[in-house]
C-alpha cells in the first residue's frame, strides 16, 4: 500500500497538468485567433476635413436638390422635334448622344467660366450676373437659367444658410474666402429683391451663383465645376428618359461612362483659365433649337 499513495499523487499531478495545459491552450487560442469582424475593424479615420466638405458636395450633387432642373431639357425636346424623322441609319440613342456631347461642350464653354469667376471673386457677382444675362441669346434660355439661379438662392436662404453662415461649423466659416462668399450671396439676394422690376438690374443667373454658393459651402473650385457639369448631364439625361429616348438603366450607364467623365474633366481643364469675356457659343445651332422651343406644338419641358 506504500506504493499506492505515490501512484495516486502522480495521477493527480498528471490530471492537474492536463487541465493546466488545456487551459493554456484555450487562452492561446483566444489571443491568436483571427479578429472578429465586429470589434476589430480598421480604425475609424479621424480626418477633420473629410466630412464637412463632402457633406456639402453630396448635398449639391443630389438630384433631390430643389432647383427644379427636371423642368428643363436644355434644348433636347426642340432638338428631337427639329431632327424628326431621323434617317434610318441613325438610332434615337445615337442622335441623343450627339446632342449630349454638343450640349456639354456648349455648357462648358459658355457657362463654366462664369461658375469659376463667381467662385474666385464672389464680390463681382452683380457684374457677372449682368454679363451672363447680356450673353444669353434668347428668353427661353434666360428663363431657365434665372429660375434655377433663384431656386438656388431660395435653397441657400431657407436651408443651407442656417448651417453654413451661422458659424456653428467653425471649420467652414473660419475661411476668409468663404466669409466673403456668404456676404456676397446675402448682398446679391437683397439687391435682387429690391430691384425686381428693373429690366437691367440683377437677374439671378444660375452659373455665377452656383460658383458663389459652392464657395460659401466650402467646396473646392474643381469640385464646384465638376458638380455643375455633372448636374447638367443628369438633367439632360433625365429629360431624355422622360422624353422616351432611352430607359433609366441606359441613362445611368451613359452617366457612369468614362466618356462622360472625360468630357467633363477635359472641359474643366480647358476653361480653367478662360476669362468670362472669352466665353462664347461653340454650337450655334443649339441657340436656334433652344430659341425655337417656343414654336413646338406640344411641350413637356420648359426649355
Amino acid at each position: 500500500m506504500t506504493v499506492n499513495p505515490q501512484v495516486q499523487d502522480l495521477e493527480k499531478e498528471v490530471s492537474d497538468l492536463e487541465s493546466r495545459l488545456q487551459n493554456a491552450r484555450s487562452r492561446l487560442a483566444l489571443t491568436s485567433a483571427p479578429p472578429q469582424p465586429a470589434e476589430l475593424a480598421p480604425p475609424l479615420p479621424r480626418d477633420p476635413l473629410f466630412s464637412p466638405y463632402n457633406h456639402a458636395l453630396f448635398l449639391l450633387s443630389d438630384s433631390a436638390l430643389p432647383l427644379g432642373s427636371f423642368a428643363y431639357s436644355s434644348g433636347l425636346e426642340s432638338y428631337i422635334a427639329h431632327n424628326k424623322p431621323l434617317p434610318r441609319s441613325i438610332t434615337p440613342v445615337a442622335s441623343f448622344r450627339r446632342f449630349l456631347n454638343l450640349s456639354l461642350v456648349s455648357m462648358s464653354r459658355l457657362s463654366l467660366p462664369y461658375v469659376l469667376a463667381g467662385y474666385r471673386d464672389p464680390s463681382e457677382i452683380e457684374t457677372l450676373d449682368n454679363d451672363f444675362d447680356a450673353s444669353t441669346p434668347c428668353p427661353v434660355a434666360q428663363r431657365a437659367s434665372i429660375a434655377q439661379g433663384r431656386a438656388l438662392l431660395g435653397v441657400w436662404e431657407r436651408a443651407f444658410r442656417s448651417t453654413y453662415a451661422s458659424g456653428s461649423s467653425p471649420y467652414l466659416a473660419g475661411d476668409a474666402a468663404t466669409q466673403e462668399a456668404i456676404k456676397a450671396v446675402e448682398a446679391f439676394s437683397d439687391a435682387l429683391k429690391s430691384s425686381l422690376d428693373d429690366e437691367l438690374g440683377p437677374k439671378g443667373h444660375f452659373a455665377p451663383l452656383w460658383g458663389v454658393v459652392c464657395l460659401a459651402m466650402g467646396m473646392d473650385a474643381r469640385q464646384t465645376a465638376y458638380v455643375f457639369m455633372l448636374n447638367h448631364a443628369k438633367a439632360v439625361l433625365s429629360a431624355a428618359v422622360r422624353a422616351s429616348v432611352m430607359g433609366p438603366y441606359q441613362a445611368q450607364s451613359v452617366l457612369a461612362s468614362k466618356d462622360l467623365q472625360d468630357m467633363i474633366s477635359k472641359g474643366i481643364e480647358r476653361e480653367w483659365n478662360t476669362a468670362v469675356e472669352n466665353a462664347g457659343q461653340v454650337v450655334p445651332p443649339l441657340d436656334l433649337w433652344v430659341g425655337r422651343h417656343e414654336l413646338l406644338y406640344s411641350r413637356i419641358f420648359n426649355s
Partner: protein
Amino acid sequence: MPIISPFESSIAKSGQGKVVLSLLPPANPSLSTLTYKYPLKLITRSPGFIPQSALTSASQPVHLYLLTYGGGLLPGDQVDVSITLEPRTRLVVTTPQGSTKIFKTTVGPGRTLSDKSRQNVDVHIGREAALCYLPDPSAPFKDSRYEQIQTFTVESTAKDTTRSSLCVLDWVTQGRTSRGENWDFQSWKGKNEIWMIDESSVRSDNAEKKKKKKKLLLRDSLILDDENNNQDQTASKSLVRERTSPHGVIGTLILYGPVFENLSSFIVDRFTSLPRIGARNWSSSVPAAAETTPEYDSKVTFTAARVRAGCVLVKFGAEDFETAKDWLGGILREEGSIAKEFGEEALFCL
C-alpha cells in the same frame, strides 16, 4: 470737347482707320475725321438721300465702304476701325468687295499660330444717331484663323426716341463651297458687344458711380475652333462641321433703338407667327402646314427675340449663303424701313 492737336500724326499703325461723323448746323452731315492706312481702305460717299422718316431727328445718311486690299485678310493682318457717330448723324457701312476673305494660315518655320487675321471695329453712337451695318459675310478659307471684335457703345441716359440706333449683321459661311470647303478653317471667333455708357457720370468723383458708368447690354460671342490646337488634324477638322451641322451659313442680326423699332417688331412677329413645329393638320381639305409658310422661312432656321432693353437678337442658320441672303434681304425689303431711313443702297450686300 478736347482740342485736337494739329500736329497729331494722322495714323500710327497699319490697318488702323478712324472716322468721325459730325452734323454741322443746320443738318449737314460732315466727316470731321477720315484716316486709314494699308491694308485698310475707307471710302465715303454722301448720296444725298433724304430719309422718309417719322422721326424728326433724321439727317441724311453718309455711306462708308469698308475695303481691304485684295478683298480679304492675310495671316497677321489686323484691321482696327474706330467710328464715332456724333448726335443725330446716320451712317451706312457696307462691304462692296463681297465677302471678307480670310486667307489660309500656314504653320511652318517662322510662322506661329498667333499669326491670325484680326478685325476690330469700335463704334460710338451718339444720341439719336443711327448705324446701319449690313456687310457681306465673312468667308474663312481652309486652314485660316480669324478673330473679330465689334464693339458698339451707346449712351445709357438717353431715353425712348433720343436713344441711339443700330442694326448690325454678322455672318459667317462655311468657306468656298465651289472648292469643296465645308467649315475647314482652324478657328473663327466673332464677338459683338453693345455697351451702355453714362457720359454724365464721368465727372462724378464717386468711385461707386464710376464703376457703374459702363454696362454690358449685349454680348454675342461665337467661337468655332478645333480646340485641339492641331494635335489631330483629321479629327479637329470635323469638329466645327459637326457643331454647325446642318448649316452652311450662320448669322446674327442685332437691332436696337427707335429707328429700327418697326423692323424689330416685324421680325419678332414673323418669328412668333411661324407655324408650330409638330402641329397636326386635322383638316383633310387644307394643304399641309408646311406648304402654306412663306418660302424662305421654311428654308432658314431662325429665332428672333427681344432680349434686353428693347434689343432684338435674330439668329439664323441656312443651308447656303444664297438662301440666307435672299431670306434676310426679303424680310428687310418687305418691311421697308431700312430703305426708307437709309436708302435702298444700304441693302447693297443683300
